[in-house]
C-alpha cells in the first residue's frame, strides 16, 4: 500500500478541475506534436531543451570515460610499444594509399573541369565520438559529442573509415543525434559502382542489412557489387562507398528482384565517426531547391589532407546533374522510376529536393 508522504487532501478542489487540466495539456501535446512533425518550428525549443539535458549524457558517459582513462594510464609499456609499432605500420600503408589517392583526385578534378560538372569538392571533416547512451532499442540512432557549437547541422552526412554511416537528424549545442543508414526509416540513393545503375538502399532495422527494393528482375546487379552514394538527394556527396551486395534473388514472376546488401561502415562497432562538410558550388539550374550551404568556414576549404581514409572511388556517372537523372538512366534500371516518383514505401531519398529527403529520413522529426 502506498502511504501519503506529504498531504492527503485531494487536489481536485484547487484551481481548474482535473478534467479541464487534462484536456488543456492533451491539447498542448497534440499541437506540439503537429508543429514538430509538420514544420520545423520547434527546432529552437528542441535545441535549448536538448542543451539543458546534455549534463545527463555527461553523467552517464563519465564512468566509461573514467575507466578508459584508468586503463589508458596504467597500460604497460610493452603494449604501448606494440600499439605504436602497429600504428606506424598502418600510417605507412595509408601514406602509400594517399599518394595514389592524390593522383586520382588531380585526375578527377581535371576531368570535372573538362565536363564543367559541379560536385562536392573542398571538404572539411571533423571527428566525433559516439556517446555511450541507449536511445530507443528498436531504432538505429546514436548520439555524438559534437553539436551546433561546432557547426553541425541537420542533414549533415556522417561517415566512418569504411563508408557512409548516416546523417544528422537533430542538433543541440553540445551533441547531435544521427540516424544510421540501417534504420528502417532511412533510405539513401545509391548507384552500382560497376555500371552506374541508380537505385535506393532502404534500411531494414538490422545493422548488417540494407534492402534494395527498386531493382527490376533483369537489372544487372550481382553479389559482390559495390554500392556508392549517387548524390541525388543533395544530402550525401556522390561517390562514397555505402554497401556491398551479398544476395540477389530473382523471381521470374515478380517485377522486382530481392536484393540485399551489407553496409560497409561498421554501424554497430565504430565509436568514432567523421562529420563531413561539403562545399557546394552553385548547381546548374535543375529545379532543385537551394543546396544547403555548409556553415562557417566550410566554404573556404580545400583541405584534402583530412579527407576520410577511404579514397573516393571516381564516380563514373555524371554527378551533380540531379535534374537530368531520369533521362539518362541506363535501360532496365528501376532506379529512375524510384527516383522520379517515389513510391509511398521508401521514406526518403527522392531527389526533388534535399528538404524532402531530409524530412523523410529523419522520420518526419
Amino acid at each position, binding site marked *: *500500500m502506498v502511504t501519503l508522504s506529504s498531504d492527503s487532501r485531494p487536489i481536485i478542489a484547487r484551481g481548474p478541475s482535473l478534467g479541464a487540466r487534462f484536456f488543456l495539456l492533451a491539447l498542448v501535446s497534440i499541437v506540439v506534436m503537429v508543429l514538430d512533425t509538420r514544420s520545423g518550428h520547434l527546432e529552437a525549443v528542441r535545441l535549448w531543451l536538448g542543451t539543458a539535458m546534455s549534463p545527463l549524457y555527461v553523467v552517464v558517459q563519465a564512468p566509461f570515460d573514467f575507466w578508459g582513462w584508468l586503463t589508458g594510464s596504467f597500460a604497460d609499456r610493452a603494449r604501448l610499444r606494440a600499439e605504436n609499432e602497429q600504428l606506424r605500420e598502418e600510417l605507412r600503408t595509408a601514406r602509400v594509399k594517399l599518394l595514389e589517392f592524390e593522383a586520382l583526385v588531380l585526375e578527377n578534378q581535371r576531368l570535372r573541369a573538362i565536363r564543367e560538372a559541379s560536385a562536392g569538392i573542398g571538404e572539411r571533416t571533423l571527428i566525433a565520438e559516439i556517446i555511450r547512451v541507449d536511445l530507443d532499442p528498436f531504432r538505429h540512432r546514436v548520439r555524438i559529442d559534437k553539436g551546433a557549437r561546432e557547426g553541425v547541422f541537420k542533414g549533415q552526412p556522417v561517415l566512418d573509415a569504411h563508408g557512409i554511416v548516416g546523417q544528422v537528424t537533430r542538433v543541440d549545442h553540445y551533441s547531435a543525434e544521427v540516424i544510421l543508414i540501417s534504420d528502417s526509416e532511412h533510405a539513401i540513393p545509391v548507384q552500382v559502382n560497376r555500371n552506374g545503375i541508380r537505385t535506393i538502399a532502404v534500411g531494414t532495422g538490422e545493422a548488417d542489412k540494407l534492402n534494395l527494393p527498386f531493382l527490376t528482375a533483369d537489372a544487372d546487379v550481382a553479389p559482390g557489387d559495390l554500392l556508392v552514394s549517387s548524390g541525388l538527394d543533395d544530402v550525401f556527396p556522390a561517390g562514397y562507398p555505402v554497401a556491398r551486395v551479398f544476395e540477389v534473388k530473382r523471381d521470374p514472376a515478380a517485377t522486382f528482384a530481392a536484393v540485399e546488401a551489407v553496409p560497409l561502415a561498421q554501424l554497430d562497432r565504430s565509436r568514432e565517426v567523421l562529420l563531413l562538410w561539403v562545399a557546394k558550388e552553385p548547381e546548374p539550374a535543375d529545379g532543385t531547391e537551394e543546396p544547403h550551404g555548409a556553415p562557417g568556414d566550410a566554404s573556404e576549404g580545400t583541405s584534402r589532407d583530412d579527407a576520410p581514409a577511404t579514397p573516393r572511388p571516381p564516380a563514373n556517372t555524371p554527378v551533380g546533374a540531379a535534374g537530368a537523372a531520369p533521362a539518362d538512366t541506363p535501360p532496365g534500371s528501376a532506379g529512375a522510376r524510384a527516383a522520379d516518383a517515389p513510391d509511398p514505401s521508401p521514406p526518403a531519398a527522392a531527389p526533388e529536393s534535399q528538404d524532402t529527403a531530409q524530412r523523410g529520413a529523419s522520420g518526419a522529426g
Partner: protein
Amino acid sequence: MPADQGVNSRWLIAGTLLVSLLLAIVPLPEPIRVLRPEFLLLFVIYWSLSAPRIMGLTLAWACGLLMDVLVGTVLGQHALGFLLVAYITHRQQLRVRVFPLLHQTFTVLMLFAVYEFVVFWIDGIVGPAITAWQRWLPVGTSALLWPVLVGTMESWNRRRRH
C-alpha cells in the same frame, strides 16, 4: 513539521525523477536492452499516489516532455502518454492507494499498457511504427518493479519519520 516534510519530499521527488532520467539512457548490454523498465513513469505514478499535490498533471506532462527530448522522439509523444497515465492515476488515486499490493501491481500493469499503446499509436501516425512484440516487454518489467519500488520507498519513508 508539515512544512519541513513538504520541502523534504520535494527534494526526494526531484532526486528520484533525476535518477530515473539517467536510468532511461544508461547503456545496457544488448540482450536486456529491450527489457528496460520505464523508471520515470513508475515514479510519476508512485508520486501521483503518495504526493498528489506535488506530482500534478503538469509535472507529469513535463516529465514526459523531457523523455521526448532525451530519447529523441517527436515532442509531445511521451508527454501525452505520461499525461494520460497521471490523469487516470489521479482519478483513481483514493481507491488505488488502499488496494492490496498485488491488486495495485495489476493496476500499474494496465496503466503501462495504456501508456505503451499511446506511444505506439503516435509512432504509427508519425512514421512507420515498430511492430515487434518485444516493444511491449517494458510493460511487464515495469509492473514487476512496482512492488519493489513501493517496498523501498515505504521503508525509506518510515525511517525518515522516526
